[in-house]
């Protein structure tokens, strides 16, 4: 029933006129009230809904109170439709057209009962919607605090992602396979090229993709333990040219230049990263040998390439300091990455890179050999000059004709030229060593994957061909002592070739909780090592027969493999890999057939009340590479001649490992223990004859080598000072049987490390990161024990003023044999908010230290090395993004 006040027409007209004057200041606000009652029982209906709509738009709504009353305020609408409804009743509508003269309206409703059954089912109670959980994405805006520059800086901030000092990235505890950009692969496993160079401002999200499988056939039924990161660009950067330019100059002719250029659009992605500097960032570090080994059952993306081993290594000595403190470099590099989609089923990725690094280093060493009959002592003063030129191309084409078939073709070409020059003063003698390297490598791998009824067939075919030529000159020669040849140089020519071909076919199945596969394959490896040493004086070259030789090793390796992975219960995983390899081995005039079993098994138990456990066992057997079996003497350095083993044998060892983690964060406890034991039944050892001027090393097989590694750490958090702390202990013990100067020795080496580290999270302007480490090393060689102890301190102080000025001071100090010395570097940056440029200043070796001393000892050698420090310099640089 409705009651409406009846208003006189005359009064209405006057009222309207009156209101018209106030039209602009008065907003038409009306109040609608009323009562809603049950039509049958006349009882008021509490919590009935009254909703006022204007057309489709909801203007206002309310629920009736305990007396069935409602009160609605309507602003600025000429008319509304009121609907009164309640469960179990028929809804009622009423139209109200507002007039200016009336402010209050009363509308009562009477609702009639009805039996209502509203039932609708979209999913059953236990059903869940299907969601792909393989990707975790982080919105960069949620974690950014304006202090990040490169992708690497940003990754350090994201939960679940860790970046170590070398830039190696782990996500969710596992090493990542690669970094994609908008789903496309540009750099393959050389992902550091992207993480260290790409500027963060073009990115919107970073995704961690779990279960990543490039193989679309296997992905349909196999899970994978591979993890990749996918960078998603900001919407306005998806089809555009972007980049950054950095340029700097400093005292003492220091310079740096860095240009990133990116072209990203749906058809092609291009990234060109160019860099040149002499401020401690060698190009080789980014293109370093990073081989990604897939984890777990799904390792069907593995790399079949085999590495070549050089005969001679001539590079300077390294230590724990940052390379910029003790190595001078001049580097130029350029990396062009392309990813192009030719059609829905053909994709191409190519990476062409070039770098030219040159290094300079100066250091002095003192050596002491603890041997019979008398200790040997000598000094070296070294100047090192190394130059490397590298041109490489990585190509990969993927062809997916249907969802059940996938073909990939990958090819790598490498050209490497290098020269190492070492001028040294050996005791009082001047010796010049020069090594020229020339590497030519080619590797091609083709993989075909075809889906079959309950699994897939994977066929891999690979071919590789590698050549390494080394020319090694020593002047004057130090091996032939007679007076005529004293001033002649020794000239050694080493040629190594490695050719391999192979075919592997696998049947892969997965049902419910078990994955298993059968593989059969065949590999052919052909290695040759040719060594020629000459005595060259004036224009005559005389070949030294005892230092020359030719070796060929040919292996035919058929193998059968069975792999299985099974989830026994939730969070309990059992896995095993049984690989049986036969090697029909042929070397010069020796041949033998070897059987090389390689079984391994593991058990992983996660998330129990007492923590997480992982046990693993493997048995490893293999034939060492040809460079161990060169049975003529080879000149390895000015004081080292080396002889290989004449009769090849298999190396055999057992490996056991255990890992345990326990975490109770509320009690501030995080505890981790791991232990590894490797027991060698047969291993390559050596027989050394050490003399004042020359060392002769002969490789031999010896049983009984042992290695133990134990680590434990406890991490906590100290609330009052907002600092996380960790204390840890690491112990390494190894035992090896050797022969030194005709004496059988059992070398035992024991290293213990105690360390403490802490990071502060203070809210103010300063924060610290501290590390203190005490290492004690004891080497025993049956005769005596050599001890070595060292204290190390590291302090990193970070000043952050409003996120605009950021300064980092890094100090590393060492206390060795009561001598204390340190390195100090600083980096200060000015990042104005909202601008796309940054200014920075970098200072190396603030206190202009002159040298750094390091001591090393093994079981019978003690070395003390003094490195010349790179003299103090500062460099001012500017960075601009576009």
């Amino acid at each position, binding site marked *: 029933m409705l009651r409406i006040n009846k208003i006189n027409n005359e009064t209405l007209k006057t009222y309207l006129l009156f209101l018209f004057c106030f039209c602009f200041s008065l907003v038409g606000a009306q109040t609608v009230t009323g009562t809603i009652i049950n039509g049958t029982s006349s009882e008021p209906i509490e919590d009935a809904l009254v909703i006022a709509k204007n057309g489709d738009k*909801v203007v206002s709504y309310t629920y009736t109170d305990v007396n069935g009353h409602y009160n609605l305020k309507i602003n600025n609408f000429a008319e509304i439709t009121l609907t009164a409804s309640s469960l179990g009743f028929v809804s009622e509508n009423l139209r109200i057209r507002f007039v200016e003269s009336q402010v209050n309206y009363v509308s009562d409703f009477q609702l009639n009962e009805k039996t209502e059954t509203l039932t609708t089912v*979209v999913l059953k109670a236990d059903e869940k919607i299907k969601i792909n959980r393989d990707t975790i994405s982080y919105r960069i805006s949620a974690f950014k605090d304006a202090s990040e520059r490169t992708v690497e800086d940003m990754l350090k901030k994201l939960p679940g992602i860790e970046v170590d000092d070398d830039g190696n990235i782990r996500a969710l505890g596992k090493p990542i396979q690669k970094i994609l950009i908008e789903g496309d692969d540009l750099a393959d496993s050389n992902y550091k090229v992207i993480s260290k160079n790409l500027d963060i401002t073009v990115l919107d999200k970073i995704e961690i993709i779990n279960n990543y499988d490039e193989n679309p056939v296997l992905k349909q039924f196999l899970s994978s333990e591979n993890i990749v990161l996918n960078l998603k660009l900001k919407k306005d950067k998806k089809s555009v040219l972007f980049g950054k330019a950095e340029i700097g100059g400093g005292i003492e002719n220091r310079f740096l230049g860095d240009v990133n250029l990116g072209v990203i659009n749906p058809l092609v992605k291009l990234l060109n990263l160019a860099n040149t500097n002499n401020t401690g960032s060698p190009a080789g570090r980014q293109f370093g040998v990073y081989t990604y080994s897939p984890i777990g059952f799904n390792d069907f993306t593995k790399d079949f390439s085999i590495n070549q081993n050089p005969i001679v290594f001539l590079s300077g000595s390294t230590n724990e300091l940052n390379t910029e403190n003790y190595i001078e470099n001049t580097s130029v590099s350029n990396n062009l990455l392309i990813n192009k989609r030719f059609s829905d089923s053909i994709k191409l990725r190519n990476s062409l890179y070039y770098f030219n690094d040159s290094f300079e280093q100066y250091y002095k060493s003192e050596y002491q050999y603890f041997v019979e009959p008398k200790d040997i002592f000598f000094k070296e003063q070294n100047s090192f000059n190394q130059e490397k030129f590298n041109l490489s191309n990585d190509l990969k084409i993927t062809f997916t004709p249907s969802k059940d078939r996938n073909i990939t073709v990958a090819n790598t070409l490498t050209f490497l030229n290098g020269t190492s020059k070492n001028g040294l003063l050996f005791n009082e003698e001047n010796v010049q060593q020069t090594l020229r390297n020339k590497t030519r490598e080619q590797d091609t791998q083709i993989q075909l994957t075809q889906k079959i009824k309950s699994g897939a067939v994977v066929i891999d075919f690979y071919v590789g061909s590698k050549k390494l030529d080394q020319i090694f000159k020593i002047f004057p020669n130090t091996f032939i002592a007679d007076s005529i040849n004293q001033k002649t140089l020794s000239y050694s020519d080493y040629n190594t070739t490695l050719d391999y071909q192979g075919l592997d076919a696998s049947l892969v199945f997965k049902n419910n909780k078990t994955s298993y596969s059968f593989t059969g394959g065949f590999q052919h490896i052909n290695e040759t090592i040719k060594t020629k040493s000459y005595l060259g004086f004036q224009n005559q070259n005389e070949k030294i027969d005892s230092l020359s030789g030719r070796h060929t090793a040919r292996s035919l390796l058929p193998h059968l493999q069975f792999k299985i992975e099974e989830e026994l219960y939730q969070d309990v995983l059992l896995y095993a890999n049984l690989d049986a390899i036969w090697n029909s081995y042929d070397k010069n005039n020796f041949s033998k057939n070897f059987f090389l079993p390689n079984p391994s098994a593991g058990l992983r138990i996660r998330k129990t009340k007492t923590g997480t456990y992982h046990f693993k066992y493997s048995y490893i057997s293999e034939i060492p590479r040809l460079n161990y079996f060169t049975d003529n003497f080879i000149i390895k350095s000015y004081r080292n001649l080396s002889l290989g083993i004449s009769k090849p044998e298999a190396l055999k060892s057992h490996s056991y490992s255990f890992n345990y983690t326990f975490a109770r964060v509320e009690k501030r406890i995080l505890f981790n223990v791991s232990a590894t034991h490797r027991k060698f039944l047969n291993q390559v050892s050596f027989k050394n004859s050490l003399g004042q001027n020359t060392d002769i090393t002969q490789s031999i097989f010896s049983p009984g080598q042992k290695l133990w590694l134990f680590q434990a750490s406890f991490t906590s958090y100290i609330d009052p000072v907002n600092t*996380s702390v960790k204390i840890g202990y690491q112990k390494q013990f190894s035992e090896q049987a050797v022969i030194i100067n005709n004496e059988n020795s059992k070398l035992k080496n024991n290293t213990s490390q105690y360390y403490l580290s802490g990071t502060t999270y203070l809210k103010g302007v300063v924060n610290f990161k501290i590390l203190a480490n005490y290492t004690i090393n004891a080497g025993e060689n049956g005769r005596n024990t050599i001890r070595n102890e060292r204290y190390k301190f590291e302090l990193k102080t970070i000043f952050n003023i409003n996120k605009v000025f950021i300064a980092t001071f890094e100090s590393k100090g060492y206390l060795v044999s009561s001598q204390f010395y340190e390195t100090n570097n600083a980096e200060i940056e000015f990042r104005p908010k909202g601008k796309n440029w940054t200014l920075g200043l970098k200072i190396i070796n603030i206190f202009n230290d002159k040298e750094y001393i390091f001591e090393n000892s093994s079981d019978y050698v003690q070395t003390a090395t003094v490195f010349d420090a790179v003299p103090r310099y500062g460099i001012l640089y500017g960075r601009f993004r576009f």
Partner: protein
Amino acid sequence: MPLKALLLFLTILNFTICISQTERGLIRYGEIQSLSLGAPIGVDYNAILMFDNNSSLYITRKDSLEKTKIDGQKSVITAQGGSIFTAVTNEKGFQYNNLIKKDSFYSRDLGFNYVKEKTPKISWKIEKETKTIGQLTCQKATATFRGRDYTAWFAPEIPLPYGPWKLQGLPGVILEAYDTNKEIFWYFKSFEYPVTTMLPSFKPVTPPKGKDWISIETFKEIQIKNFKNAQIAGKMVAEKMNIETYSNDTMKNSYIEVFDVEDK
């Protein structure tokens, strides 16, 4: 005669009692929490909303609501043994009781705290968009509540101001709701009215002996403290791995109600 009258009287009484007894409704939802992960990839819990004309009770993470243990969903484990998703249910579950007649909201919330507060007033903006969920037409509404921007789809055909968790106050029951990126996501499974199947007891939330109600202010303090603990956990893990970690995080990446940000 008197007997007939008595019988008539009893029948009428019975009849009126039957009519005045309020019918109950039951909505089943799925609740997925994936805070900081940018997509609804967290653990998917079963949840129910029981209601009548007087009040509603929303229950989630209850052991008996899950037929089997939370299985078939990969919890993501980090090397430290901690996990990004903690899939945990408990005996009583988390309960949220909206007593519209008393304008009060009683919850058995995180940390098993019993929180009493006035029913939160959410300033919903009702949009024109509609969609069908099951056989019901739903309309869209948006609001910012305690640090998050929510989108809710409510059904005017069920004219009661109820919804999952603490989302309520619309001219219809909320059948689906989510925040930006669906890091909190309630999705609809089924609706039954009146309820004919067996229901868990529809009793108002009461703290057990020895536990008291706390106010929303106290609960806020407890949550902020818990959050700080979680931050510390992250820092401890970073220390153990000898890596850097982000030092300042917002509650938004760990809790639904962002108490360290003032609601406008």
